[in-house]
């Protein structure tokens, strides 16, 4: 596997920026209330919460995932295909046009055998038929 534009990975530096943006957003707003009596019961929740400060909710993780995918897409990843090329040459000279007892030319018989062999192999590979007309 390789990357067409590895320099695009520099955009991963945006993730800490996103975290900082969340930290700034999570700074508590100050509100004056008549009495804090009823709020005392709520204090436990912060300590119980996994991850503590700041509150990184599902939205944060979704944004990190989307940003990572975009950066990867910009980097242009590709996969190397390790295949063994095989060249098959069929004689296309005039002698190959001689008819066999079945009534087909030698060339056609050779091509049919070749097709049958390649189909039987079922390798999933591709092949190109290049003809060279004398």
């Amino acid at each position, binding site marked *: 596997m390789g990357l067409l534009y590895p320099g695009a990975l520099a955009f991963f530096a945006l993730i800490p920026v996103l975290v900082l943006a969340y930290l700034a957003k999570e700074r508590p707003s*100050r509100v004056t*209330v*008549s*009495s*804090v*009596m*009823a709020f005392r019961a709520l204090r436990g929740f912060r300590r119980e919460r996994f991850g503590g400060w700041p509150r990184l909710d599902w939205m944060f993780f979704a944004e990190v995932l989307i940003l990572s995918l975009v950066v990867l897409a910009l980097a242009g990843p590709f996969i190397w295909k390790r295949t063994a090329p095989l060249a098959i040459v069929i004689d296309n000279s005039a002698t190959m046009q001689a008819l066999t007892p079945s009534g087909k030319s030698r060339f056609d018989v050779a091509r049919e055998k070749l097709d049958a062999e390649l189909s039987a192999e079922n390798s999933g590979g591709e092949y190109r038929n290049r003809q060279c007309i004398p």
Partner: protein
Amino acid sequence: MFGLPDEFTPGFLARLEKLRVRTRQRYAGMGRGMHLSPKRGSSLEFNDYRHYSPGDDFRHIDWGLYGRSDKLYIKLFQEEEDLLTYIFVDASASMGFPPADRKFEHAILTALALAYVALASGDRVMLRVLGGQGAQIDPSFVNGRHRIVELARRLQNLKPAGQFDFATTLATELLAIRRAGKVFIVSDFLMLLNSVTRGLGMFTAASMDLTAVQVLGGREINGQGLDGDVEVVDSESGERLRVSIGERERKQYRDTMIRLTRQLKSFCLKRGLHYSLYTTDQDFQQFFVRATRDLGLAH
């Protein structure tokens, strides 16, 4: 209307005039009125008999009883006097928060409506302000329904500010007022229950008939306007708490507020006091009609 807040429409005033302050015991007043007094006097309400003594008014001799018993008895009647009504308005800083609820304005409306009920039924009213700034409250009784405008004007420039110890302040007030009667305390009662119970307990110990009117903001009791991570600052003590408020926390906050109001209500009912809760999202006039009994008023 005539210097009164807009809520005091002619229709509402007429409704208030049909009410009167109810007490669970008899109090001596300062003049003729509509409440039975512990004193004996000349009303139509029969009270007791006593033996005739030279110098008694002949008109009070029960001649029917003389015919049956051959002894002279004097009929004694109950005196009817006015009721001394004390109205305390909490003007501490907490009454100003949250500003959107206009808690203090509603507390003043409640105090004025109670004062008008008392004045309209011929009682004397003393309005007292606990804390606050900008008030020029004369610590004397007023009587006559026209004096309601004067009371409204005195409260006009009052702003909620400062803090006070509820029990200590009420103890000082109790020493100052001396004569027993009906007491209304209009406050948010957002303070330590111990301080509240001590304060109210002193008034009941002094034979006062007490009504606690708790005024809370509609947004305040539901925790509206608070979301996410919030640093809440106590308006009076300046204490700070950092809390995270979501749906679950808001519900817990609301439950706590309701529990606090129930604790106060429970204390009041156990001690034979009247208790009424008014939240500012209610219609003020409707509240007064619905909560007549809870406020210690009667038709």
